[in-house]
């Protein structure tokens, strides 16, 4: 199996192929609404891909199409290099998924629910079922839940059980739709470290989420959906690099400070009452501090500000996390 970890570290060319590749994937519902519009998703193998977008932007519909649950009205896609849905029977055993929250039989226990899912998998070996279920439950910290009926599970336990179901078999690709939904901070941390560990083992993860902090901590790539279209897609490093670091000088003499910065060739210099804001560009901040001091600028504060992902996100979608009509 080609588990190209290297594919992810760099922001440029992909060497290990794609775990998910869509070609102008489109879904127009019968109502005429275009939920997903010509999306070209490219998730390199081995990476953790943060799939972002406001509510109603088409993320879940895209994920449902990826898994063959709904049929695209146009376009197509491949999972792990094989065409879907034609090769679903061969591809999907290698794909673990969590789609729109957990769903299990309420009157069965957690392990019994997992046993049922395993029984449905014609490529699974029944002799290893017990061991695999125990291992999966252990991985998500549910071993203690024992034989409680699913209906008595808390939301966090349900979420964990759904992740355990996704880990029931060794996977090459995990499609996780908001996996930390309903988890307490401790559970959220555990899921993040689990995702990181799985990624280190070579599993590709497509992570749909609302939490930008989650993306910053675990993702190597991001794709941003808005109103059914994929408006940007790149590695996190690349995305970060595309918007430069900004310099903030706090001083009582903004005019003097801006003169020095302009003299050093900084762009986008903006003055306000308390200081100056400028694009750092290729300048080295450590050369600017002495220059400012030499020019008798009383420096109260000096900071290089990297744009947060939230800033990027807002600049891309033109808004915060509001529901798209």
């Amino acid at each position, binding site marked *: 199996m080609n588990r190209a970890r290297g594919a992810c570290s760099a922001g440029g060319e992909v060497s290990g192929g794609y775990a998910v590749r869509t070609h102008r994937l489109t879904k127009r519902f019968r109502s005429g609404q275009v939920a997903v519009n010509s999306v070209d998703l490219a998730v390199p193998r081995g990476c953790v891909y943060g799939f972002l977008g406001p509510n109603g932007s088409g993320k879940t519909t895209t994920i449902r199409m990826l898994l063959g649950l709904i049929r695209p009205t146009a376009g197509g896609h491949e999972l792990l290099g094989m065409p879907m849905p034609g090769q*679903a029977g061969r591809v999907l*055993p290698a794909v673990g998924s969590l789609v729109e929250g957990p*769903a*299990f*039989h309420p009157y069965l226990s957690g392990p019994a629910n997992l046993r049922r*899912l395993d029984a449905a998998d*014609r*490529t699974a070996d029944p002799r290893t079922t017990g061991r695999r279920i125990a291992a999966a439950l252990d991985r998500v910290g549910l071993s203690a839940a024992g034989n409680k009926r699913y209906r008595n599970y808390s939301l966090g336990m349900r979420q964990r059980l759904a992740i355990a179901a996704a880990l029931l*078999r*060794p996977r090459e690709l995990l499609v996780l739709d908001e996996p930390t939904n309903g988890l307490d901070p401790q559970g959220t941390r555990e899921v993040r470290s689990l995702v990181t560990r799985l990624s280190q083992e070579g599993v590709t993860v497509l992570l749909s989420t609302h939490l930008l902090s989650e993306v910053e901590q675990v993702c190597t790539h991001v794709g941003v959906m808005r109103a059914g279209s994929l408006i940007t897609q790149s590695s996190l490093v690349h995305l970060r690099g595309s918007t430069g670091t900004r310099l903030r000088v706090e001083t009582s003499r903004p005019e003097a400070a801006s003169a020095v910065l302009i003299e050093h060739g900084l762009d986008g210099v903006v003055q306000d009452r308390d200081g100056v804001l400028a694009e750092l560009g290729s300048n080295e901040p450590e050369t600017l501090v002495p220059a400012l001091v030499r020019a008798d600028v009383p420096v109260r504060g000096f900071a290089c500000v990297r744009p947060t992902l939230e800033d990027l996100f807002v600049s891309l979608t033109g808004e915060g996390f509001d529901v798209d009509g």
Partner: protein
Amino acid sequence: MSTADDPVTAESRGGGSASERGEADPEGPASVPAVPPGTGTGTPTGRAAAGCASADLAGGCGGRRSGLRADLRLLGSEILLHLVRRRNWAGVGVLLSVPIIIAVCVRLASDGATDGPGPVFLASVTDNGLFVALVSLSMEMPLFLPLAIATISADAIAGEANTGTLRYLLTVPVHRTRLLIVKYLAVVVAFAGALLLVAVVGVVVGVSLFGGGQLTTLSGTQISFGAGLWRLALVCLYIEMCFVAFGAIGMFVSTLTEQPIGAVIATVAVAMVSQILDTVPQLDGVHAYLPTHHWMAYVDLLRDPFTTMSIRPGILSALAYAAIFLSAAWARFGDKDVTC
């Protein structure tokens, strides 16, 4: 959460060839890891495999015994789901109450119910306990049995859709055709179980209250108790066939909605409307085509010698209904967008 090197991940390093061996040889390595992309022939998939899924159930498809075993495993899981639901046991309780109530009531009314109008065979109950089973089945036929078959068949897909488990089953993956076939087979088994329980309880209660011995057929002749049991078995088989065919309608309705209650009500309504239409003399011409029309034909199995004159069209009707509505369910479900 555990360490990184637990079995789940250890297995993931199994490699491609192991998976191929696992496919071809059921006694192969204990771990059947994820099927690697681009290698081997793997599991047949897509709509082209639809025929194969059904052939597997019949033991065909190139003698892929491991495939058959996997299908039986899923069938077992389905039957288990029927067995763990309290709703189903409540339904069985209602079905079983009928023979018990009939037997006890007839016994208590010591002069018997030999005169006056009543359900078929009621008059014969005191003659032979076997008739408790037969009279129970005939009394349950208009409503209880349709309710039973509708509950389990119309819930098959709609129920899974309603709880959301359908999306996880389909992404396991379970091919939609395979799921439909296995679910239908589970309905067949579950209904047979319910029917068998009614018959057994009817016979046991009946024989213990009224005795067994020789049995008078509808033609007035006497047959042995053993032959009577065989007749009862044939009756059960015929009723099973009729209702399982009706269950195909339930399966189809089940693919139309995500509301299991609605699907069950709609299916029961079909049975009710069909029975009402069957009593309207002006509609004489269409009676033979109604799904419930041939249900009562089982009485022919209690004549001596038994005739198949009305049984045969009943079998044809059942086969036609099963074929038409299972095909419709397959066509509908195969294309359906699962958005729940």
